[in-house]
């Protein structure tokens, strides 16, 4: 069987497990979660975990279980993010709080996180410990994300700290668990954890860049984050370059709405924000790839290199 097919079939098992886990939740929390996990997604974190697991030959069921657990943590954070942002859609369908109301979604997110907790405990071997540390970091990232709302002066360093916590941490966990399940040497586990964190940061920056590109973002209402005062890397770079202050004024206007998005894009691109952000993403991608230097040549290293090269490529 070719490696691609192996990955494909294992990913399907992860997806099946997610569906089963969602179905195991008690009513009335089950339905919004089931709807969310049934929709297509890139399963980036499971993918990363699976790639790292190829450092060895761990039992497939363990790998599948760990990958589904990591994805559950991600799903829980998506559900809560959407409650906070009042995002109407997620993965091309109505978001959990639309289906179950804000309170139902809050509790569904909590239940999913608790499910990830029991799964992590069942996996044993210190999985609970690293997972709970990661979840704590992600929740700190949520806090950083909210408290910077409408901050047009947020520094790139602070922004990177935010995405490192919010996105990098969970990528790092996925990588680490995959390598640990493969019984990789401690140095290799650390290397892929660094890879994961850096790749997560690069992914988030590139995701911000997509918001500046109207053609590449189906399913997500444009500029939602800007409406909520959550400015991504391109905009933050542009704000720093903007001596006139026009962009900041535009972004802070109380009446700011979807009609302003073309103006924002023009400003951000004109001020070099998007290209600066892409450069930053490339730096982090470079760091991710550099972290792989100590890994032996083989399927894990190849797949991870490929993972870093196609972080935001549409997969379905």
């Amino acid at each position, binding site marked *: 069987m070719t490696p691609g097919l192996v990955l494909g079939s294992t990913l399907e098992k992860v997806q099946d497990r997610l569906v089963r886990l969602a179905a195991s*939740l*008690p*009513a*009335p*929390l089950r339905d919004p979660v089931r709807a969310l996990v049934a929709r297509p997604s890139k399963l980036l974190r499971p993918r990363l975990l699976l790639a790292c697991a190829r450092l060895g030959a761990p039992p497939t069921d363990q790998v599948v279980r760990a990958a589904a657990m990591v994805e559950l943590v991600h799903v829980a954070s998506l559900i*809560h993010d959407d*409650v*906070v942002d*009042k995002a109407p859609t997620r993965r091309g369908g109505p978001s959990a709080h639309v289906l179950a109301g*804000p*309170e*139902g979604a*809050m*509790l*569904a*997110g*909590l*239940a999913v*996180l*608790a*499910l*990830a*907790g*029991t799964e*992590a*405990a*069942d996996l044993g071997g*210190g999985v*609970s*410990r690293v*997972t*709970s*540390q990661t*979840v*704590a970091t*992600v*929740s*700190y990232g*949520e*806090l*950083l994300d*909210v*408290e*910077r*709302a*409408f*901050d047009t*002066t947020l520094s790139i360093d*602070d922004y990177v700290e935010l995405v490192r916590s919010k996105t990098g941490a969970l990528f790092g966990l996925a990588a680490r668990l995959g390598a640990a399940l493969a019984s990789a040497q401690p140095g290799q586990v650390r290397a892929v954890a660094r890879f994961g964190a850096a790749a997560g940061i690069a992914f988030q920056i590139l995701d911000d860049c997509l918001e500046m590109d109207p053609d590449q973002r189906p399913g997500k209402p444009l500029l939602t984050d800007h*409406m*909520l*005062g959550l400015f991504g890397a391109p905009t933050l770079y542009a704000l720093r370059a903007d001596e006139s202050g026009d962009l900041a004024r535009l972004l*802070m206007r*109380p*009446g*700011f*709405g979807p009609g302003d998005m073309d103006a924002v894009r023009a400003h951000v691109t004109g001020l070099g924000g998007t290209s600066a952000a892409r450069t930053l993403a490339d730096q982090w991608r470079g760091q991710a790839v550099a972290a792989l230097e100590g890994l032996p040549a083989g399927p894990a290293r190849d797949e991870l290199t490929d993972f870093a090269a196609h972080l935001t490529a549409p997969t379905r």
Partner: protein
Amino acid sequence: MIREADVLVVGAGPAGAAAALELTRSGLRPLIADSRLPDPQHGGPRLVEPRRGGPGGHDVLLNQATLRTLSAMGLAGRLRLRPVESIELRLGPHDTTAQLPPTHRFPGATASVCDRDDLDGALLAAVTRSAATCLKGTVGAIIRDEAGRQLATVHRDDGPPVTVSARHVIVASGSPPSGNGLVCTRRIAGTGLGARFVLHLPAPRTADPAEIPVCLWVAPGAEEGILTIGAARVGPADPTDLLDLAVTTLRAAHPELTMASPCGPPVTGPLNSSFTPGNAVAEGRLLTGDAAGLVNPFTGEGVSYALQSGLIAAQAVAEHQDDPHAAGRAYKRRLSSAFVGYFETARHAARRYHLGWRVLVSTAGSTRPVFAKARRAVLLPEGLSGLTAAELMPMDAADVATLTPFLLACDEVAVSTVRKQWPFIARLLIAGEQGPHRRLRPAAPFLGALLSAGKLPDITRATLAAAIELATLGALSFLGPMPPEPERGRTVDWSLTAGVLAGDFLLAQATRLVAASAPDVAWSFADWLGELAVLRARRAHPGHDAAAGAVFASLLEFPARIGGRLGGAPPSVIEALREYGEQCGHAFMHAEDALALRGERTRMDLDLRSMLDGRLSAIPDLLGEDAASAALDGDPLLLGEALTATLKAGFAARNAAETALDRVPHPRSARILRAFLRAVTQPMGFPPQSRSA
């Protein structure tokens, strides 16, 4: 001329006076310098006459802890105090034409007001009478010489400057001119709000995080008919604008003030709320009070912190008389445990403060238990302790001695877990509480159950206790009632957002503590969190039914069951503990209902309406939904019926819990658990048959 001293105290305001008096109590003879002190070399020591009602004066609020400290300093009887009848918080719109913000009134407050000049005069007099050596003059530059001695130049009005060489220096000279904000006050006369103290925290005008919060207040004067308005702001401000804002906003909320006119000049000073424990020792000198930035940025309050930090500095010096470095280390360490919450060193301090402000004002109308508690902890002068009706657990000294070190260790873990990232939550956890070992808290039944097999408590289990408490707080932030949906638009729904963030954060930290300290409990812990989510969803979701008390039963069942398991109890005892915990939870729910029905404050800070709206009441389970809302509308018959049914159900739960405890053989374990149960059910009083008519 060089004068030698062991300790030099710079300034004789609240912090300096407290430090100097505490030092003399330790047998030290500090030198205290202040330009307002009498000059013993020119006419000998004489008592300073306290000034009252001076033209530039203003009135300050003294909370219960402050009054206790002043009393211990021998001052309380010398001050003209006026008890404050109530403290009111108004959090909300800036715009004076908009609807007035909701008021939170806290009656029966234990605070008093006093003329600031009166307070200063009494402090100076106390210092003068004490064994401290007074030096009239203003301290200028202080340098530390190579031997580590501190050399201070004291300028005098009449005579050449004096150099003081001291081993220790306690700086209590107030806010530096370069403080990070401004505080303005002015006396007004001709009207009064009675003895009400009112604090306004207007909402932000814009979404801009660079906007700076301002707080405004009216303090009743020590004299009837006179009062002080005040305003404080962190960041640059114009004093005239700030006072104008205070007058306009306060008048809009209190039309009585329209008739009042100024009866003194505006008093303006720098505000320094930049405290971090790390910066409280500079060049070996201990900074106290305003000099250390110990001012609550939300309320401008600083007197209580000044006194407390002065005492702590003096104690650190007294314990390390020969070692200024050790004194400095001890001072920093104690400050960081004493002043949790408002002040933390962090790269994100400004943003976090801003978030705190937005959350406080946007949750002004929220009855979510966590917000009600946060409001109280952050804004009220007493924190939680002065005003809570929290029942203390009735216990004998030996049991208290068992419980105290464990619960203190639990607090320490909980506070250090959250303080850096969420200082406001850390404030919730301690908030100047008294008797932490006797409060109604889930760590108490956990410890009681941990003792159930007769083994001594393992102090390292305090980490798990902290996890249980953080998780309980986190769960409370996910419990209804839901905040009302704000207007659609370009705003963050801070109320909902803060609930989600705080809940996620607390539960994540709790889970982390469990995984690190008790990995064998990790599965049960996660399972418990999932159960809480489901029970709450089944209660809140139409078409599903869980008893109102089910969530609380689960909240208390877990600590009791896990405590028994970790304590090595046999299965039959663990089962009894589980039953006990569940019934405690149901009893708690009924006791909350009883308090709400009687119109008293509940432990979750909810009233009857928000309990019913939030589906956090067992009354509909007992009487049906219709009867419950009729009781809410004030139908006296139904109110009485609801109370009777509530008490009946509450006593049944209490009896069931008691019966379960009969199966817990270890006496100390059973005693502690019984004391907890009593505290839980205390609001229900005694069963009807034993109550006099």
